[in-house]
């Protein structure tokens, strides 16, 4: 039976961002919170993060290239300012510096809070939290728990959310965002177990739905990362920010895309081409393998394109960890070792591991301010009652390229801030706005269409189409034509292909006619989302005739601040994607644009 469910607050997503917000709002006295997650909360993708979470704790410093713990009482070399500068430089001056300042300031505090809540970090001899190096960071400030950092953070925050009485709707899939007259009023969601649709009304809705890496063929992302929140918000009229910026991680398992943490290079791993050369010498002689991800992935791709790749199709590169020795590998990279054994049959203690660049992180998303409030234009006009944080949001701390360990930090910091803001919003007398619309019937019709018999018979409009085939063609298209290296020519092909796929998608049929736990139906819905935001990525990339961070145009290989130091805003209109732009927040006196060299 369809029923209307009412909460003060509905949070969609139970990864770090959503769980932090729920825990904090609840702790602040908001008792009636519902958190939806399409996978069981502990299965959220945050748990897959391996390497660490950034924060200038100054527990470790680098002396003549060697790491040593900073004696108690002595000050280390790291600072909030240095974290800030590294992040700005990493973002290629597309990150909003006011947001970055908030994030790096909050960083040490949130790591201590995790620790106090029971998170099991790796430790130094004297009991402080252990830290390691990470790419693009000038000090060792990745705080870690072996190579399962995200896992322990996620479990810790979920446990504390339970402790504070948060109600979880596990295996519920949000389908639609309800906005009327500029006010957010709730969502429509499906209880996956029964297949029933429900209107869920709330005074405040928050999206924390994670990233959109699944639109690429080779990706490190979980199957849940289909960018639902991003696509659903866009369909509801919310603009999306900087969607063309997609990070490719340099070390995905060859042919699988599964991540070998950057901690591999943080601990000192080498990248080798088919000739056994440490080719990073030619691209980033100073930082070598620890240059930021966009640069390392491009360097790998160049090696591959010029014929120096490895493997049967020459699309791979070697990650060599042998010189670290068995002890260090077992202590610091145990999970990575397991992964390489399972997927490659390679023991990284004895052999180099074949890897390749893999789609990893979505810099773009739903624009927000530093308190998770969604803003809908260049003037930062708030959308009443709608919040977002984590990878689905773009408060724009990462700009054109994210530094490793900064996104666990972002999801935590801005999730926590959104929690406080939501509590204030509710306690400030927010109203439950009326909703009499027919979201449920609209979604029911959409789902029934996928399963309709007439479609299965061809419907007089051509052959029925398979979801899997369309998804596969889309991913291949995005990888080939809108990937690491982009050109106008390729992007135009990408655009045409997506248009074709969108047409064909109208004839998609789902054979599974069951109500109960119908995952084929949900895959169809998710594939529709991939098609929706693919267009936005492509349009943004086509228009941006420069190279910045993760967006590299071979036909415009230089950064062009005069014309392009601005955020892309993409709005859904009946005519298609409409682009406009928004200035980047720069502290001109402190961090003016510079050339980005490593």
């Amino acid at each position, binding site marked *: 039976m369809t029923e209307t469910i009412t909460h003060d607050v509905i949070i969609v997503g139970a990864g770090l961002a959503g769980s932090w917000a729920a825990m904090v709002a609840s702790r602040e006295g908001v008792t009636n919170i519902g958190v939806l997650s399409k*996978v*069981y909360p*502990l*299965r*959220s*993708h945050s*748990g*897959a993060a391996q390497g660490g979470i950034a924060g200038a*704790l100054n527990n470790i410093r680098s002396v003549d290239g060697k790491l040593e713990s900073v004696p*108690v009482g002595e000050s280390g070399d790291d600072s909030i300012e240095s974290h800030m500068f590294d992040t700005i430089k990493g973002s290629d001056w597309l990150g909003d510096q006011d947001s970055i300042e908030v994030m790096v300031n909050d960083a040490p505090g949130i790591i*201590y809070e995790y*620790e*106090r*809540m*029971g998170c*099991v*970090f*790796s*430790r*130094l*001899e*004297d*009991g*402080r*939290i252990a830290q390691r190096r990470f790419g693009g960071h000038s000090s060792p400030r990745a705080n870690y*728990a072996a190579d*399962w950092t995200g*896992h*322990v953070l996620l*479990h810790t925050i979920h*446990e*504390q959310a*339970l*402790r504070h009485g948060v109600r979880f709707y*596990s295996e519920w899939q949000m389908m639609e965002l309800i906005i009327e007259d500029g006010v957010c009023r709730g969502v429509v969601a499906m209880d996956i*177990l029964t297949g029933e649709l429900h209107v869920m009304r709330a005074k405040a809705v928050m999206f924390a739905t994670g990233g959109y890496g699944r639109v690429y063929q080779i990706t490190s992302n*979980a*199957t*849940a990362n289909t960018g639902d929140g991003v696509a659903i918000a866009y369909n509801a009229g919310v603009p999306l920010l900087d969607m063309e910026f997609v990070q490719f991680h340099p070390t995905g398992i060859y042919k*699988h895309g*599964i*991540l070998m943490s950057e901690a591999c290079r943080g601990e000192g791993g080498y990248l080798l081409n088919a000739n056994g050369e440490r080719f990073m010498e030619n691209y980033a002689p100073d930082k070598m393998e620890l240059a930021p991800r966009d640069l390392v992935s491009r360097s790998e791709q160049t090696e591959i394109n010029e014929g120096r790749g490895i493997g049967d199709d020459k699309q791979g590169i070697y990650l060599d960890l042998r010189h670290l020795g068995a002890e260090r590998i077992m202590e610091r990279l145990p*999970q990575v070792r*397991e*992964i390489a054994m*399972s*997927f490659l*049959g390679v023991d990284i203690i004895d052999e180099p591991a074949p890897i390749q660049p893999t789609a990893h992180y979505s810099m773009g998303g739903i624009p927000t301010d530093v308190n998770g409030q969604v803003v809908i234009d260049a003037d930062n006009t708030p959308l009443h009652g709608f919040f977002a944080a984590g990878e689905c949001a773009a408060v724009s701390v990462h700009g054109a390229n994210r530094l490793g360990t900064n996104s666990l930090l972002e999801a935590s910091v801005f999730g926590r801030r959104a929690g406080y803001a939501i509590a204030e919003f509710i306690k400030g007398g927010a109203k439950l706005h009326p909703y009499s619309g027919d979201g449920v019937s609209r979604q029911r019709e959409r789902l029934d269409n996928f399963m309709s018999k007439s479609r299965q018979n061809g419907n007089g409009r051509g052959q029925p189409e*398979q*979801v*899997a085939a369309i998804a596969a063609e889309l991913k291949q298209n995005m990888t080939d034509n809108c990937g690491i290296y982009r050109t106008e020519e390729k992007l135009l092909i990408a655009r045409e292909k997506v248009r074709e796929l969108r047409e064909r998608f109208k004839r998609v049929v*789902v*054979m*599974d006619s*069951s109500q*109960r*736990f*119908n*995952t*084929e139906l949900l895959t169809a819905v998710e594939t529709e989302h991939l098609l929706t935001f693919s267009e936005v990525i492509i349009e943004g990339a086509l228009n941006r005739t420069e190279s910045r961070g993760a967006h590299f145009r071979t036909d415009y290989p230089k950064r062009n601040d005069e014309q392009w130091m601005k955020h892309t805003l993409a709005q859904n209109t009946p005519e298609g994607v409409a682009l406009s732009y928004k200035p980047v927040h720069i502290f001109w006196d402190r961090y003016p644009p510079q050339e980005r060299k490593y």
Partner: protein
Amino acid sequence: MTNRTVTVSIKRYNPETDKKPYWQDFQVELTAETTLLSALEDIKSDQDGSLTFRRSCRHAICGSCAMMVNRANMLVCDLPLEKVLDKNDRVTVEPLPYQPVIRDLVADQSSFWKQYERVKPWLVPPEGEHQREFRMTPEEVKALEHAEMCIMCGACYSSCPIIAGNKEYIGPHALLKAFMRVLDPRDTIPEERLDIVCNTEGAYRCHKVLNCTQACPKGLDPAKAIAVLANLGFRTGKISQERMERLRSLIPADEIPVKAAGD
């Protein structure tokens, strides 16, 4: 030798339409990259869209994809298919046992999660604001025996013969969590925890069959953790005092002293 056709035999069941579970065979192409999960994905996309299973991370960290493979519980995402084929190039896949089936390979884990919440899986830290981290030693981290690595996949739970007959039993997954909390020097309620788990629905019910330890895809040892809890159960009354002492030294000298929190 790879690149051949092999058989994946799957136990199917949809309570909406089927009177009882039945076996169905699917042929899949085996390559060097095929995992059991990727084989299931291929079957779903190319042969039968209604095949139902859970998965998400694809690398043994989210805990979604535990199933019974050739009668043993394991994760299927990082499992090379070739490794589990018998001499007839065949593998059998069923949902995790001892729980109701939602559909095909999806088990209803309600009792599993209920027991998880029952042990209060959260840490209850000392009250008060602190400037910095507690000083927990590497040895204290080691003493947790990597229990923090548990991914709550349910492989242990569904291999436990007590669970088979008694859903009131707390189960190895939740007892492992309780072990980790009791041993954590930062926790303020170890005695309360022992009260929750040291009884005949908890640590004292374990028959030491060790199935749980054998089933754990992460190499953890819930059976040992349960034995530790059972032993600590005989020492209740003495642990609080020791914990308070340790708590005091956890906090760097320049910070405020702690008092125990209630929860």
